[in-house]
């Protein structure tokens, strides 16, 4: 793909059609939705078959901190969308700033969630019971997606350090779509995760 430099203050183009990079992300996220649908269905299938959920001896999941962290993560959809709008209008500095803000919040979320994840691993193991297996699989799968999103953010920031091109704009468009998906998924995952304690 050619990298035509965009003017720094181009008028915002009328949105006609999504680029193929966005459609590629849509196909990818469709398959991811099936994956998480299967994981969530597995969780509830196991839950409704179990007498005790979580099993006796396994602590109930924390509620407040995961919910607060998820709420914070969901707010990053706003700077991501604003960064995309700024890029479409050719405002490179604003794009970088908004992307950096989103990255900082997302990285903080990720660091705290990994801390909680490791704390849970110290208390119970994925091999102990079906609850622990699906708990770590579901939460770990979501954390992996957050990590992928962080890598995309870093890659975009590095690419944007040398200017804005159509290729990079498409990359930002697809990455923003990815984050909206991951943030929406975070709500479903965290509600499922904390549901035994509600």
């Amino acid at each position, binding site marked *: *793909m050619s990298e035509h430099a965009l003017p720094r203050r181009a008028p915002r183009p009328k949105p006609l059609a999504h*680029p193929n990079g966005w459609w*590629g992300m849509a196909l990818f996220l469709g398959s991811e939705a099936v994956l998480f649908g299967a994981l969530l269905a597995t969780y509830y299938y196991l839950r409704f078959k179990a007498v005790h959920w979580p099993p006796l001896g396994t602590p109930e999941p924390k509620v407040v901190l995961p919910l607060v962290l998820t709420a914070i993560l969901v707010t990053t959809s706003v700077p991501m969308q604003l960064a995309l709008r700024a890029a479409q209008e050719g405002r490179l500095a604003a794009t970088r700033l908004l992307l950096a803000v989103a990255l900082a919040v997302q990285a903080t979320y990720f660091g705290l969630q990994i801390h909680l994840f490791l704390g849970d691993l110290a208390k119970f193991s994925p091999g102990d019971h079906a609850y622990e297996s699906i708990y770590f699989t579901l939460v770990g799968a979501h954390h992996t997606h957050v990590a992928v999103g962080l890598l995309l953010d870093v890659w975009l920031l590095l690419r944007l350090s040398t200017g804005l091109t159509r290729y990079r704009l498409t990359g930002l468009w697809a990455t923003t779509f990815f984050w909206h998906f991951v943030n929406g998924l975070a709500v479903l995952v965290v509600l499922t995760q904390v549901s035994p304690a509600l």
Partner: protein
Amino acid sequence: MRRSELLQWFGLLGGAAAWTCQHGALLFLSSARCNPAGARWAFGMTGWQIGVTVAAAAVALAAEWAAVVTALRTRELEYDGPPPLGRIHFFALAASAGNVLFLGAIVLNGIGAGWWSSCGSS
């Protein structure tokens, strides 16, 4: 143009839709056969299983044909070309790979439904 787009969307979604319908139909049939409420119907699971699987595989193969035909018709374009023709070519390439996977999933689904038809898996 209109016909090409229809062919492209069928190629993209046909295999996935066939797999989804087959999965739902076999789940429904297995549940009906293995639960007391449906046991009185006493239908032959194997015949339904083969019929549903063959129908789904036929749709997936037709979708693969549509995707390949569309990809060949637009082969002079780049995969990242401007829409709508660039998008049609891009989707046709993606679908020609995806439908092969869906066909494999349909065959395995059909075999799996037969494997568990002894009603012991729920």
